[in-house]
Structures are given as structure tokens and as C-alpha cells.
């Protein structure tokens, strides 16, 4: 049996890769993908700790996180399409409408 700490280390690595992607990429679609990766890393932690303590509650949280992720993606991609329609670009350096 693989110990739980290995799963936690793997999920920490995936989460940090997602953080790096959010910070350095300029394409909002790829930033969204990195957010999905971070959500997946958190889900992996939930399931690993749920198995560790013999509880099903960790998997319940994963189901709800999954529903929220699906809702977030649909609205976020709608926003990206709306921005692209009005500005003809989605580079986040040029979309600075709300910058003071």
C-alpha cells in the first residue's frame, strides 16, 4: 500500500505547478486550465486523507468541488468570449479595463 504522505506530496507538487502557471502565463484560457489543475490537486488531497481516516466525507467534498469547477468554467469561458468579441484579443496585458 502506498502511504498517504506520498499522495500528499504529489498533490503539493501539482498545486505548485498550477500556481506557477497562473503567475507566468498571459493567456487567460491557460490560466483557467492551471486553476483546474489546482482544484484537482486539492481533490486528490481530500480523497487521500479520506482513505487514511476511513471516511467517505472526503469524497463528498470532491463531488461538490467538481460541480463548482464545472460552473466556474462555463461562466469563465463565457466571459472570455465576451471580452474577445469586444476587444479582438484576450491577452491579459491588453485587457486592463478595470485597472485604476
Amino acid at each position, binding site marked *: 500500500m502506498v502511504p498517504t504522505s506520498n499522495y500528499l506530496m504529489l498533490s503539493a507538487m501539482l498545486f*505548485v505547478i498550477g500556481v*506557477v502557471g497562473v503567475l507566468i502565463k498571459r493567456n487567460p484560457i491557460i490560466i483557467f486550465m492551471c486553476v483546474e489543475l489546482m482544484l484537482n490537486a486539492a481533490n486528490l488531497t481530500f480523497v487521500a486523507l479520506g482513505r487514511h481516516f476511513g471516511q467517505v466525507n472526503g469524497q463528498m467534498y470532491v463531488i461538490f468541488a467538481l460541480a463548482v469547477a464545472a460552473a466556474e468554467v462555463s461562466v469563465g469561458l463565457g466571459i472570455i468570449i465576451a471580452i474577445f468579441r469586444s476587444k479582438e484579443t484576450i491577452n491579459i496585458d491588453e485587457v486592463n479595463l478595470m485597472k485604476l
Partner: protein
Amino acid sequence: MTPLTPETIFFYVLATISVVAAMLMVSSQNPVRSALFLVLTFLCVAVFYVTLNAQFIAAVQVIVYAGAIMVLFLFVIMLLNLGAPQPERNRGNAQRNTAIVLSLILIGMLFGFGTMYVLPPSAPDALALASKLGTVEGIGANLYDPGQPWLFPFEITSILLLIAVIGAIIMAKRKI
């Protein structure tokens, strides 16, 4: 260090694949390639769910994440014609370097605190119990059990999805 059984070797191989695919996802210049590498990472995570006795979550991961969400991403990438690599405006490497340094600090903190905090050993019957919990039967019995706190959040989730549908239509439609 854990002893090398076939199970742990399988875990290490799959973990390497998923981490390398995630890194290629971040470093790739082509959005379509990034999306496909992310699908590979999601599939590896689904296999991890199977090894963690969460069969239902693994199936949902493949269907919802690797299926629906990634198809939506690819659809938008191709709709907006972003498949070709974009010419990146050179803005200096300051933000990139700062991000990498901060991430190294973050992962160091995660690993450091992780080794400082010793996980309490799992109960002897926890693993035998966990092998029954992840099936469709176990998940459903827990989700719809009035004695458990999950029924109300489940209903709220349906409202959340309805709001997301309406929001997506309002955002993307030219004229309502």
C-alpha cells in the same frame, strides 16, 4: 522511504507522468497542446483515485474533467482561433523569475510543514472500511442519507448550476 513493491513502483511511474505532463502544460506555447497535456494529467489523477478506492470519483473525473470540461476548453480555443502560438510581447523576465522563486518557497514550506506534522496513523480497520465506501452504492447512501449533512448542499448545487447556465448565456450572447 517506502519499500519498492509493484504497487509503489506503479505509483512512482504514474506520479512522474502526471507531474511531467503538468509541467509541459505550463511550458507549452501552443494552447491546444497545453489542453492535451492537461487531459493526460487528469487521466493520471483518475487512476490515482482508483488506487485510493474511490471508483465513483474516478469515473466522474474521466467523464466530467477529461471529457466535458476539456472539450469546452478545446472548443473555445478553436472558436477564438488561438491554436497558433501567439507572439509573446517581451516584458522582461522579472515577473517570471519572481513567480518561480515564490513557488519554490511555497513548495519548500509545504514539504517542510508536511514533514514537521506527523500524520496520525490510520485506524486498523480504516482501509478495509475505505474499500467499501467509494463505490456508487457507498457514495449514494452517504449523499442522500438524511442523517448526514450532504443533502442540503446537494440541493444548493443544483441552484448553483442553474445560475451558471444563465450566467454563461448572458455573458456569451450578443443580444438577449
